[in-house]
């Protein structure tokens, strides 16, 4: 097996609040292999965005406190000086954000914003940066790129803007692309196109992708491996097929049960998970999911389960085996 290009160990992020320290990410560890797509799945407040922002030191510190280690090609991202991390951002690790409508500066042309990272990281002169910008727009499927390059963001539709964001992301040939809910704000048709586009670029450029989403449908379509996050900790991690088939963790099971099943004989009611995610200032002492878990036992609220091997490359943080729970 090859070396992972990113290996995150014991990543912990907490924020100082008036109600005490809020632990939003709790000892998160995962690896990203070259060329693979890792999906990080979780509901709002599970720490999925915060953990990825922390990787690039994009959280304001204070109030955030980031601990742990994130080795990217062997160098710890979290220990880098300002200059070093800045030369990684956009250059070797790029990030795409959720809302394409606000991710672009309204007063600058799309071309200007595309050229910026090219000049910064690759030292291109104005003319060749412009040409590269046009090539990139072309690459992400924007028609008549040579004309559109001088347009302003408001002249693009949402899907087009997200394509522009992707073009900015891949501008400097990064090794890793972090897509934070990159298709959530788009309608399904556009979403499918963007997913295809990223898949194509990935095979063309040999890119690794961390795909952060709450949309399990998207995950099934694109991910190689899935990390299910809840309350800032991993509940289950596995390759995409075993995860969907075995659903070892009660949280994974509940999440999947809350999805509509297409083609079901009769309309089935969606089963919502009762309750709310835990308040990060008052994390339950045991398993973070215990208060909402249909299968919780007394021990669950007292002791947090360790992440343990439950099959080949299949990790689960639950005291129980599925055979015991779902009999």
């Amino acid at each position, binding site marked *: 097996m090859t070396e992972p290009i990113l290996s995150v160990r014991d990543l912990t992020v907490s924020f100082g609040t008036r109600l005490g320290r809020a632990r939003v990410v709790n000892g998160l560890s995962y690896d990203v292999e070259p060329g693979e797509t890792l999906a990080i799945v979780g509901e*709002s*407040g599970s720490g*999925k*965005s*915060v953990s990825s*922002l922390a990787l*690039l030191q*994009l959280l304001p510190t204070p109030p955030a406190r980031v601990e742990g280690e994130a080795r990217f090609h062997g160098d710890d991202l979290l220990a880098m000086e300002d200059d070093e991390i*800045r*030369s*990684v*951002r*956009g*250059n070797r690790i*790029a*990030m795409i*954000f*959720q*809302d394409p*409508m*606000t*991710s*672009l*500066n*309204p*007063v*600058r042309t799309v071309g200007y*914003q595309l050229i*910026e*990272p090219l000049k*910064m*990281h690759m030292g291109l002169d104005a003319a060749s940066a412009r040409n590269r910008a046009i090539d990139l727009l072309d690459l992400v*499927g*924007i*028609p008549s790129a040579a*004309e559109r390059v001088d347009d*302003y963001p*408001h*002249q*693009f*539709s*949402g*899907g*087009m803007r997200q394509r522009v*964001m992707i073009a*900015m992301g891949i501008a400097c040939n990064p090794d890793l692309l972090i897509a*934070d*809910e990159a298709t959530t704000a788009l*309608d399904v*048709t*556009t979403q499918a*196109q963007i997913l295809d586009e990223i898949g194509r670029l990935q095979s063309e450029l040999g890119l690794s992708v961390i795909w952060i989403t709450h949309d399990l449908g998207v995950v099934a379509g694109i991910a190689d491996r899935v990390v299910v996050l809840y309350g800032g900790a991993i509940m289950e991690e596995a390759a995409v097929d075993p995860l969907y088939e075995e659903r070892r963790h009660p949280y994974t099971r509940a999440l999947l049960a809350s999805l509509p099943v297409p083609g079901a004989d009769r309309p089935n009611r969606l089963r919502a998970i009762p309750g709310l995610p835990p308040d990060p200032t008052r994390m339950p002492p045991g398993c973070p999911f215990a208060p909402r878990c249909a299968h919780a036992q007394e021990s669950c609220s007292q002791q947090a389960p360790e992440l343990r091997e439950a099959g080949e490359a299949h990790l689960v943080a639950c005291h129980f085996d599925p055979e015991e729970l779902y009999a």
Partner: protein
Amino acid sequence: MTSGDEGLARGAQASDPSHDAGAPIAEHRSRTHATVETVLRNRLAVAGLVILAVLVLAAIIGPWVIPYEINEIDIANRLTGPSTDHWFGTDELGRDVFSRVVVGARVSLVVGFVAVGIALILGVPIGLISGFYGGATDSTLMRFMDILFSLPAILLAIAILAVLGPGIVNAMIAIGIVYTPIFARITRGSVLTIRQSVFVRAAESLGATNNRILRTHILPNVMAPIIVQTSLSLAFAILAEAALSFLGLGVQPPEPAWGRMLAEGRSFFEQAPWMAIFPGLAIVLTVMAFNFVGDGLRDALDPQQRSVIESRGVG
């Protein structure tokens, strides 16, 4: 691109209220263009612009077109009322009030622009740094601005002039310092909003330096309220200069300045009211003109400012 995709793009465009329905996508309507158009539709703003154009013209070519030398003394014709020879009458030394008012526009405009320029150069960077870096930097800078802001403007200007000594250059510096906190506050307020935008975070995630983010992403997005405030501050600065000159702290005689002429006319108000009325009218017109233009600009720029900038947190 598939035809379906194209339809999608067009649909999104048509529902965008900033676009005229049915206008082709390629049609350019830049923001500057739209702003100018909105301002020109406002009658008061146009009136203001016309008055300002006349003033600027007077300031530039005034000395060559006036009927009399500004310091030409003609004791025989002192304190004569408006006539075809002397449109605005003469003062206590027989100098032509019209000529002096025309040339006085020069002082007022120069002092106004330079003073506001100083306030911009000091205030905008302070606001940018304060709003962007926050924390102790912000508190220190803004508390200092608050101290300046809490003192009455004219009193503060007089105090500064007491230290620097009277004169036109010092008056510009004093007025500039007095108006710095306004620009610092307005800039900081807008920066706080823009700072939270996704595109600023996106620029950061692409490796942009703070300096670059401030210059290329934040500054252009906070310009609208600064432009509006600039034109309103010009009116205040001209008024402040008039007040300082009235008190004898600004322009020194025999240079003509509206504030000074007002002060000189005061002693002769019963015999020769035109000495004070005409420079007074000039001040009123100028201040009104800047206010009209400022209001027009605000109407044109502010609603856009509100809808364009939306701040979003992270999920």
